[in-house]
């Protein structure tokens, strides 16, 4: 065995050991601490960013919802800002309880790395931003285009794959920083800018005349982003998973943070179960029976947190697209509460 392999094995053994030691105790430890340790991004428009000394964003709101579920108080969180490189170790080592940091759900992360993805908060994918003047309506028309792309990322790989598959000619210009590529697009050094769609909207705001640019409808890669927990604690996994499902179900049933008290009088059995008026579905999680209602009241349903952070209520103005509910042409679907 070479030294690297030995090292990796030892590390994995240690991880498994620490995972086992944690089994079934995450929730107890959290209740003892009095707060949830949540890992977020160190700065990503709309997903997590600092404003007036507070964290904000869709990833941050997911953590708030989990805190509301456990404590009935969305402020009982300790945020740990993490870079892309340290995020998984922080979760594996127990430094955080849940990672909510635009992390793509992939097979290797879900298996070998000892993590569990609890759902998808945002269906992202690589897209294209172009100037309206070019009159392009589809990515298929991009033959021979000069494309600005961030160097050394999977984005660059996806781009060349897409152009090769569609037999189009490609001239890539690579950049290190997203600010540079936005400036290049503006100066006309490239015709198209490619990145994850959620980032393209942020790039667009940086331009002097954002309205002159559009994001093309094609998405050329799958990047489902969601919260992550450690292997080995199924109860905690269930709580985080169902917090998200509750928010999606609430939107589907028309329950939001403003009408939740009123909706408690609803005759719809689905709503009654969701809000803990009927049955004791909440207790099954080891939480208060009405925790789902508390989450909706204090943080909001999925539509609310989407619109507030990245949608029409934010400067980003991202369309729901894939993130619309399943019955409205999107992919957001949650199992029923019953």
């Amino acid at each position, binding site marked *: 065995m070479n030294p690297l392999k030995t090292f990796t094995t030892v*590390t994995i053994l*240690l*991880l498994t*050991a*620490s995972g086992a*030691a*944690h089994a079934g105790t995450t929730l107890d*430890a959290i209740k003892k601490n009095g707060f949830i340790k949540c890992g977020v991004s*160190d*700065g*990503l*428009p*709309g997903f997590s*960013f*600092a*404003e*007036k*000394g*507070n*964290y*904000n964003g869709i990833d941050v709101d997911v953590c708030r919802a989990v805190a509301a579920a456990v404590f009935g108080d969305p402020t009982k969180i*300790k*945020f*740990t*800002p*993490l*870079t892309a*490189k*340290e995020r998984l*170790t*922080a979760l*594996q*080592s*127990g*430094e955080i309880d849940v990672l909510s940091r635009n992390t793509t759900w992939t097979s290797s992360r879900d298996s070998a790395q000892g993590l569990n993805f609890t759902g998808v908060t945002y269906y992202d994918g690589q897209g294209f931003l172009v100037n309206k003047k070019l009159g392009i309506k589809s990515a298929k028309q991009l033959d021979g285009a000069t494309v600005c792309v961030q160097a050394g990322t999977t984005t660059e790989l996806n781009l060349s794959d897409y152009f090769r598959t569609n037999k189009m000619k490609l001239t890539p210009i690579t950049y290190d920083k997203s*600010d540079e590529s*936005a400036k290049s697009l503006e100066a006309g050094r490239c015709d198209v800018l490619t990145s994850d769609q959620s980032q393209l909207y*942020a790039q667009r*705001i*940086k*331009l002097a005349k954002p309205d002159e640019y559009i994001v093309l409808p094609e998405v050329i890669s799958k990047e489902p982003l969601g919260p992550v927990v450690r292997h080995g604690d199924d109860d905690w996994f269930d709580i985080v998973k169902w917090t998200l499902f509750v928010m999606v179900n609430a939107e589907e049933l028309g329950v939001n943070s403003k009408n939740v008290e009123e909706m408690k009088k609803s005759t719809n059995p689905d709503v009654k179960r969701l809000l803990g008026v009927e049955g004791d579905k909440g207790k099954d999680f080891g939480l208060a029976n009405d925790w789902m209602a508390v989450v909706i009241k204090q943080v909001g349903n999925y539509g609310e947190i989407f619109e507030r952070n*990245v949608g029409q209520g*934010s*400067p*980003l103005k991202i369309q729901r697209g894939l993130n619309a509910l399943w019955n409205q042409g999107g992919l957001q679907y949650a199992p029923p509460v019953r």
Partner: protein
Amino acid sequence: MPEPRVPHSNLPPPTSTTGVVGWLRRSLFSSPLNAVLTLLAVYLLYVTLPPLLRWAFLDAAWSGEDREACRSGGACWVFIRVHLDQFLYGFYPDEQRWRVNAAVLLLILGAAPLFVRTVSSKFKVRLGLGLLIAYPLVAFVLLKGGMIGLPVVDTSQWGGLLLTLVIAGVGMTAALPLGVLLALGRRSRMPAIQTLCVTFIEFWRGVPLITVLFMSSVMLPLFLPAGMNFDKLLRALIGVTLFQGAYMAEVVRGGLQAIPKGQFEAAAALGLGYWKTMGLIVLPQALKLVIPGIVNTFIALFKDTSLVLIIGLFDLMNIVHNATTNPAWLGFSTEGYVFAATVYWLFCFSMSRYSQNLEKHLYTGHKR
């Protein structure tokens, strides 16, 4: 009979060597090459300066509350003004910020007598040592809380300039004594101590700071028992101190080597032991010699604090970066980074000026 010698009245010097014209000839156009270089420099200034001034001052937006105020095309200083609190205090809770101010004020008041020439040096030494021991404790209690009725403010909420100063301050005050000890150890005649110090110094000088920080934040937690975590800031502080301590050791060693053997022998002749020789005779001279080197290391340390952004600590640099990702303020990263650069420059430049001042003050004739 020779005529009496009547001296000619003094002539004025040729106009070409006095006044503005003379200065221009001497300094800017003394040779054809210099003339060309001067013209080139003037041209470069002409090309770069007006747009820069227009961007930074004339077209800049100073007042307003949101990005709508920044449509002029110039710099958007509103972005800085709106985020200033965040840049200074990070996530430190609003109503607790007086504690940070109090800690800073306390340091200024406590350290002020050290900078006054008329205060006796004996008092200065006592005050300095007292500050060195007491201030970190007082500041820690003030900032962290949890005692004497102050609510706890977790270190994960510390940020901005506060965090930069904490890292730089702790790094500097801990690295200098550590460096002195290591330097003495490296010159020690005891093989065990010497080997230990050499190994330590060479190890820490051989790895980049970014690796040290990265190891402390990514690898260390994996080797600790489950559930045991120690503070991220503390890990960074230890990393920075050990790293800069090794550099400081080499700077101090340079000073120790410059002290002539006669000084050691004279001390021995007076019957002084090792610590008294070092403390009273050698170190005061050695440290004085290497003030530029020490301050150089301090300045490097101050700037290196910005590396903690790779382990997700919100120092000044990272908090500025974070503010540029606020959707309401996208696209103002240039202003943010210019602001951060100005703050770093102010601190480093003052340190450098102070060290020059100190050198002049401590000048006792060793310079030729």
